[in-house]
């Protein structure tokens, strides 16, 4: 049998009346039993109502996941910068460098965080006849901050050069080679691992030399690296009190401020996208309301008979709510499956990392969309159910 024939056969199977392949235990689930039978009588109408919910759930779930993927991707690219505080000399007050006594105060105030003083300059790097411009950092203790892809990053940097990944690639430098930095020769002790996240002190296009070999005295920048954003904020305020109380000596820049703003933006974007999806789900809810209302009006006499022969109001109501809920569950399940398909397609065509798509928060969006889809369906069934259940059987049967 060809693939096409198999699919056709499956579609035909679904066109069979529901009682041919679903036999609900009427004893245990009388409302579900009655509801499935009722839905089976106008399958096209039921299917279209399901389709509405399906599309609504698809819209909420896929837009929600889309926004979430953007947000996760962005915070991944930003890395840990929220945990960093950058201190620079306050140029407005005529201070050009951070001196040793200020650094001591900073280190005392910074607590358990890693304090990395830097000297910065720029220059030409030459090796084997080719050359490139690079940032030159003077750094005393690079071991806590950087890792090597080749060679070893010393805890205390006394001699030799650490070469950033881009510089090393461009000049084709390996550990053990001798490069010329601004006219002085250095042996390469390590090539640094490429850093992909955004960072104010990016090592990729830089060469790191021992502290005393670059500029001085004093430092051009001090980076504080904490374990969390909260710790970074605490360190920043402690430093501000200790160092800047008499005079504004250093500018304090907390990167968590940027990440907070970026996160705020993404949560706004996400709410907006979900709101858009929500509108389509509300439209779908209206179509369920319409279908249920039509169906209860058509079955007016039938419901009157049920009430006459002793079926309670609440059972009639339950039966109709179950119908609406079934439409919702089937539609929402379809929407979830369609969303998974679209996300899989997104993975194939867009450069998104798998772990971002498989992140548990995305599953939460799927569940949320499913729950909202079912809830809207049930809510839409409430009015028709009440209307049908509250009609007096004598009125329903008079016509």
């Amino acid at each position, binding site marked *: 049998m060809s693939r096409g024939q198999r699919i056709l056969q499956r579609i035909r199977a679904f066109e069979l009346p529901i009682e041919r392949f679903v036999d609900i235990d009427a004893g245990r689930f009388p409302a579900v039993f009655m509801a499935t039978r009722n839905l089976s009588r106008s399958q096209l109408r039921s299917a279209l109502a399901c389709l509405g919910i399906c599309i609504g759930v698809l819209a909420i779930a896929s837009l929600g996941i889309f926004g979430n993927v953007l947000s996760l991707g962005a915070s991944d690219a930003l890395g840990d910068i929220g945990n960093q505080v950058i201190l620079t000399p306050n140029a407005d007050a005529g201070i050009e460098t951070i001196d040793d006594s200020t650094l001591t105060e900073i280190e005392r105030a910074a607590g358990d965080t890693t304090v990395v003083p830097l000297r910065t300059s720029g220059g030409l790097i030459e090796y084997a006849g080719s050359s490139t411009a690079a940032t030159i950092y003077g750094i005393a203790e690079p071991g806590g901050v950087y890792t090597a892809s080749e060679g070893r990053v010393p805890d205390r940097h006394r001699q030799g050069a650490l070469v950033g990944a881009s510089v090393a690639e461009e000049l084709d430098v390996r550990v053990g080679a001798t490069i010329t930095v601004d006219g002085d020769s250095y042996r390469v002790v390590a090539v640094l691992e490429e850093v992909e996240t955004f960072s104010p002190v990016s090592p990729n296009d830089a060469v790191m030399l021992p502290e005393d070999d670059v500029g001085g005295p004093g430092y051009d920048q001090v980076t504080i690296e904490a374990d969390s954003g909260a710790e970074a904020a605490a360190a920043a305020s402690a430093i501000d009190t200790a160092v800047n109380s008499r005079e504004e000596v250093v500018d304090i820049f907390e990167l968590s401020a940027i990440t907070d703003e970026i996160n705020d933006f993404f949560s706004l974007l996400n709410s907006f996208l979900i709101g858009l999806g929500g509108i389509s789900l509300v439209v779908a809810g209206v179509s369920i309301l319409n279908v249920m209302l039509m169906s209860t009006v058509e079955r007016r006499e039938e419901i009157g008979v049920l009430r006459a022969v002793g079926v309670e*109001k609440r059972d009639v109501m339950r039966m109709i709510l179950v119908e609406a809920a079934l439409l919702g569950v089937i539609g929402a399940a379809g929407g979830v499956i369609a969303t998974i398909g679209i996300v899989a397609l997104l993975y194939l065509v867009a450069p998104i990392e798998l772990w971002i798509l498989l992140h548990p928060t995305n599953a939460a969006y799927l569940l949320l969309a499913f729950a909202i889809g079912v809830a809207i369906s049930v809510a839409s069934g409430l009015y028709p159910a009440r209307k049908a259940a509250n009609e007096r059987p004598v009125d329903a049967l008079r016509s």
Partner: protein
Amino acid sequence: MTAIELRGVTKRYETGGHTVEALKGVDLAVDAGEFLSIIGPSGSGKSTMLNLLGLLDAPTEGEVWLDGIDATRFSDSEATTARREHIGFIFQDFYLIPTLTALENVTVPTVFSPGGPARDRAAALLENVGLADRLHHAPNELSGGQKQRVAIARSLINEPNVVLADEPTGNLDREIGERILETLREITGQGVTVIAVTHDEQVNEYADRVFALLDGVEQ
């Protein structure tokens, strides 16, 4: 023993700004196992009387007694329970549910009961009315007479004291109507009261008593 009773029942409706008096002080007592036919022209108040006897509607004045209990002021829920436990209905147009089989239609009054649908009893009742080979047929696969027999079986599923029939022979030809009436006659043999509202003179041949109604008053 009196199974069901109307005491001085009056029923007024408000329609289009003026009041219609459908029943005017009607008294009726029907014994257990009695076959009563209520006859009268259209608009005489027959249907109103059946609705009151079936606890589907409440009288404006007077009382309705069922099995020695005053059912006049029953709440909706009490009336529903009383209908389920004591009364069987046979409607003029059968009113079978098209998505359910004959057997399932008969079980409908018991579907939501705690014990679940009485399938075995439904099958036995369908056998009694000669539909043993039609249990799993949908209503649209049954003839008019067969549908009416399914409706009779449905009215008996709860072992009612009273069966109310609205034009039980209405849309059926004479021969089939006779068989339906014979079936109803048999039911009364088991102590069940049968009250049939009809235009059909044929019904009176089977009834123990005829109650004639004209303009809301007994003749």
